[in-house]
């Protein structure tokens, strides 16, 4: 502090001055932009259009894009401060290679040499599939497309998956089972046109505020929210269903039971567009309201009433997020939801859809163009026709394409523990905070011979463990496309240069391919993401996710286009999938899939009497790699808390703001601030998962959906103890 400031002659008036920005109007001079770059938000899958203000090569401001069809100018608090993620402290700025135990700066050539040489050596010694790759939902579609080819055809390992398996894999496999293909059939407009909106395990007020904005525009709709916790969203509901944790399958089966019995189904739709109704009908026979009431804790009348409400609705929307997906029965829950929509014909019409709200900004992009749980363009590994078609398009021998998918994320981790996976490449994700059962994950990463972590930030809890850190450009520093939850492809543009020597992931992939010697074969003539996009348009042509009519120019002019979009298509005609009742199955019919409710894997016991629920808060994104570095967000939400019902707190003699430990069979989260609140039921506690310091995944379990491999994050058995005075984390 200088003397002029100390005596008060200087009040930093220049820093706190205001001026007129041509676009934004009167604003702090700190926010004055020389130019505004149109782009799409890089946090969640809502896919809001925004403008990034740039001055002197720095991103200084963000504004919602008024012309973007998704958000109409609005943004959530993370979006409103997103420019701070770019110049934040802790960006990865040059490659780091571990030598003698310490990460040391190296040049890009040396880094790529080291990576490729080690990978090849390990693959030579332990087989090609001893290399695994875990990517993300954060890259642009062009990068996912390039990465898939590089991993599967370049490195020739099938063991490639994304952190999207921790997020929406159950929605993917649920859609595939019911409809024959992935792809959310609805549109955000449905929030505005539905007459009944049924949210299951979705706290959109906290996690997708801009969808909440769209929902609240629809004042006439009846909002039903099924959530064991009284979330902000549940409080907005006309009917809140405070069901017991993970009993949603019973609830939905009960609704189907009532609808069949009361003939509030659409026999014509069932007859023409589905198969399996008889089996479904038989399977829900015992899900009477009384039986379901016993499982869910809801009254039989409530179940009956909600079923009738849905059955009599003109256009009911069902939307869900992690309350459904984060479950060892997630896929089946999605199937149950789809069953409900199908037997009532509530799909493919305005307002009526079973809509999975996705997590990350471009989780959809990796689902479409990636090469993880299916081949690019929703092509199935198992289908010879799909393999032949893709091989022909790529001009390669069909035998080079795998006939089945490789290991999913949790199985890669298990493979590493077992020593089958020896080298791992992690891209834009932070498993130390996001993967369940931290202890097992640490064992896995510690056993690896070589761990490459490619990220925009360093240090993160994961880059700290790396053998090699590759510094990547992030949102705002590169070009490409994102697809949002309503299949809307939006353009992502570069506003500023990456810091230091960091490179766009796309460039990193190209460099690796060149070093590997497969660049010309895989990426012929490619220089920029546009080249990948042009190839992807051809590859996706004729598929459900048809991009062939989409160009960068069209995206820029329309603020996003929903696929499928063949050339010349009317962008407004593809708002919804399955409008004609034809599905992507071989017979064109959707499958009704009987689903049985089962209790969640780890019920509470005397020793671990609470069901731990995990989730998010509006200020933070995932593992806080970004939002912990945005000062205003971290100020608003600096640390975790544990929600507990007053009845339980009284019994345990705990008071608000006490520091508590959450203990499971697997580990302990220490020093969490206790929030005594009526928003959670007795016997349940809730912990946000964003915080490395109080890592919820120290206690979560290794239980996975058998079909999607998605972890059961939402329920595990814990006890709560007062933190010993000597171990308190804060005052």
């Amino acid at each position, binding site marked *: 502090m200088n003397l002029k*400031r*100390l*005596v*008060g*002659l200087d*009040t*930093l008036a220049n*820093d706190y001055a*205001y001026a*007129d920005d041509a676009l934004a*109007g*009167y*604003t*702090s001079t*700190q926010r004055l932009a020389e130019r505004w770059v149109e782009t799409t938000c890089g946090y969640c899958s809502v896919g809001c259009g*925004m*403008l990034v203000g740039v001055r002197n090569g720095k991103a200084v401001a*963000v*504004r*919602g894009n*008024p012309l973007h069809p998704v958000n109409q*100018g*609005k*943004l*959530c*608090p993370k979006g*409103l*401060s997103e420019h701070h993620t770019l110049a934040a402290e802790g960006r990865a700025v040059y490659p780091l290679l571990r030598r003698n135990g310490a990460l040391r700066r190296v040049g890009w050539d040396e880094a790529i040499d080291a990576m490729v040489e080690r990978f090849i050596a390990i693959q030579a010694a332990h087989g090609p599939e001893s290399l695994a790759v875990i990517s993300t939902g954060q890259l642009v579609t062009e990068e996912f497309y390039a990465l898939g080819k590089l991993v599967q055809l370049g490195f020739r390992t099938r063991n490639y998956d994304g952190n999207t398996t921790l997020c929406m894999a159950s929605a993917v496999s649920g859609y595939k089972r019911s409809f024959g293909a992935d792809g959310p059939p609805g549109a955000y407009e449905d929030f505005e046109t539905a007459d009944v909106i049924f949210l299951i395990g979705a706290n959109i*007020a*906290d996690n997708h*505020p801009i969808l*909440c*904005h769209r929902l609240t525009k629809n004042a006439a709709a009846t909002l039903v929210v099924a959530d064991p916790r*009284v979330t*902000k969203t549940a*409080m*907005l509901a006309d009917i*809140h269903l*405070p069901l017991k944790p993970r009993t949603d399958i019973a609830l939905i089966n009960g609704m189907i039971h009532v609808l069949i019995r009361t003939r509030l189904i659409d026999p014509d739709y069932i007859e023409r567009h589905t198969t399996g109704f008889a089996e479904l009908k038989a399977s829900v026979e015992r899900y009477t309201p009384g039986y379901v009431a016993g499982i869910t804790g809801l009254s039989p009348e409530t179940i009956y009433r909600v079923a009738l409400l849905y059955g009599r609705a003109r256009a009911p929307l069902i939307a869900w997020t992690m309350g459904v997906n984060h479950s060892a029965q997630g896929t089946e829950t999605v199937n149950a939801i789809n069953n409900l929509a199908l037997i009532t014909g509530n799909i493919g019409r305005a307002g009526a859809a079973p809509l999975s709200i996705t997590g990350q900004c471009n989780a959809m992009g990796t689902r479409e163009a990636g090469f993880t749980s299916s081949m690019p363009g929703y092509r199935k590994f198992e289908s010879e026709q799909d393999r032949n078609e893709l091989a022909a398009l790529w001009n390669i021998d069909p035998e080079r394409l795998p006939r089945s998918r490789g290991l999913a994320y949790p199985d890669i981790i298990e493979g590493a523990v077992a020593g089958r996976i020896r080298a791992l490449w992690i891209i834009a994700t932070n498993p130390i905070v996001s993967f369940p059962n931290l202890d097992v994950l640490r064992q896995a990463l510690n056993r690896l011979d070589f761990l490459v972590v490619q990220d925009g930030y360093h240090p993160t809890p994961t880059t700290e463990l790396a053998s090699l850190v590759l510094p990547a450009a992030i949102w705002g520093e590169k070009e490409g496309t994102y697809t949002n939850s309503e299949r809307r492809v939006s353009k992502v543009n570069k506003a500023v240069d990456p810091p230091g020597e960091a490179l766009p992931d796309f460039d990193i992939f190209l460099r690796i391919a060149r070093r590997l010697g497969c660049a010309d074969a895989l990426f012929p003539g490619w220089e920029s993401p546009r080249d990948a996009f042009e190839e992807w348009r051809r590859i996706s042509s004729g598929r459900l996710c048809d991009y062939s009519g989409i160009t960068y120019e069209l995206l820029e002019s329309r603020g996003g286009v929903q696929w499928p979009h063949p050339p010349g298509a009317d962008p407004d005609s593809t708002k919804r999938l399955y409008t004609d009742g034809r599905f992507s199955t071989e017979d064109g019919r959707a499958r009704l899939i009987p689903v049985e409710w089962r209790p969640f894997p780890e019920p509470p016991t005397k020793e671990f009497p609470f069901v731990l629920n995990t989730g998010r808060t*509006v200020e933070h994104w995932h593992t806080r790699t970004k939002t*912990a570095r945005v*000062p*205003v967000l*971290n100020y*608003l939400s*600096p*640390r975790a808390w544990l929600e507990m*019902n007053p009845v339980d707190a009284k019994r345990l003699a705990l*008071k*608000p*703001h006490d520091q508590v430990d959450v203990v499971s069979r697997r580990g302990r989260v220490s*020093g969490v601030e206790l*929030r005594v*609140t*009526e*928003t959670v039921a007795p016997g349940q506690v809730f912990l946000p998962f964003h915080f490395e*310091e*109080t890592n919820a995944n120290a206690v979560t379990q290794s239980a996975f959906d058998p079909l999607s491999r998605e972890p059961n994050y939402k329920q595990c058995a814990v006890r709560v103890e007062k933190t010993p005075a000597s171990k308190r*984390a*804060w005052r």
Partner: protein
Amino acid sequence: MSGPVTTLPLLERASAGDPLFVINGAAGPTGAPRNAAPLPRELAEHEQYRFHFDMTKCIGCHCCEVACNEQNGNPPHIHWRRVGEIEGGVYPLAQRFHLSMGCNHCLEPSCLRGCPVNAYQKDALTGLVLHNAEACIGCQYCTWNCPYGVPQYNEERGVVGKCDMCYGRLSQGREPACVNACPQGAIEIEVVDARRWREEFESANAPGLPPAESTFSTTRITVPDAIAANAVKVNEHRVRPEHPHWPLVIMTALTQLSVGAFGALWVRVSAGESNGIAMAAAGALAAGLIALAASTLHLGRPVYAYRALRMWRRSWLSREVLLFTLFAHAAAVYAALLWLGRAPVALGAATALLGLGGIFASARIYRVPARPAWNRPYTNIEFFLTALSCGPMLMEAVTGARGPALWLAVTAVAAQLLNQLLKLLMLARADQFELAASARLFATGLRNILVLRFALALAGIALPLCGLTAAGLIVLLCSEIAGRYLFFVSVVPTNMAATFVAPGSASRRHRRAAA
């Protein structure tokens, strides 16, 4: 003012029939005008702008807060708009409501009334309460006066800042940043007739908020129909000690000592005694001057301390500065003349009276409704008893006398302890949240200092009685300083609800990780 005002550009636009001025978040992302209802219209006499906040629409996303922070380029911990929570009900019928608040642009703004430098004005055109950072000297008195905690001190700048409803944006026909950012349309700008509002201000009240009538907050709040009877601020169990304001601890304690000493000296001199008087006066003067020097360190802009004299007609802070300045001048002349052995008795009386006036003004500064534990006679009594105990004790310690002044001092110490005990009793029995919370602070984190303060005061009685007057003075002064420290940190201001986890309070582990 009379007749419609049309000089603010936005009003010119409105009066010219431009239908584009938007106040309800329906504008584009930049708050730029779009087709919407043309409100606010031009203001008639007695009308002003105000916020409307709809508690039934808010989902607590904090967009307004972040947008405000961005708009004003404020550091992460300064939030001119804040969002708090109240919670009630019983599972599963639990309720949580959010309150977002900027400035309430009160009809009788207490920030403005107390400001010693006239940095605030109630804008003649719009009725908005505006703060001028250039005029501000960083005394932070407004932050004590506002019952809602609206003005916030920016220590980096040395001045206060607050919400001005984005006056600059309004002038452009754009909506404020918070209104523009709110995805739920929960914040709006309206026009209110100030005369009618004095009758209808009830709708400025909301659960968890201080009563609106203290300043006639103009913010209209739409409150949900049925709020559970057990609804409380979610932060009600989180009570933290306030800032100690060390320069003010020193300043108040030493001015009171100095005034008390000059009063005692005047009585002694009037009685014709002169032994050691000049030395005692020098000591008392030194204490007074140290106090005044210390007081400037409290300011964000010490170089402009003189500006604080300006608003003596209105602000008790100005009056305090004025009276103590006059006191210091009189005391200096009086002390000099005592040294020369020919001080007029009248000057001694004037010095003491100016000083007593200064103490009275001091006490009035703290008698603000927004700080309930201060807003009691205990404050005035405490300040005068500090003067009555420390001042005579100083004189007796320097002159070596053991006269009635010593007995007065010792009695005043005992009275001070009684006063403190009565205050604690009042706090402990109080229903009002802020008073009960003060009692909780005394019973928990401040307990040890409280015990120390009492022990020192008892020593301050015992030592002079044993003949150790100088030692008695030192422990007494320590006791009063400890007491004054407690005075500052134990007050719990009125405020809106906050969030559950204290903002900005990352765990030690996390701070370590960040470092």
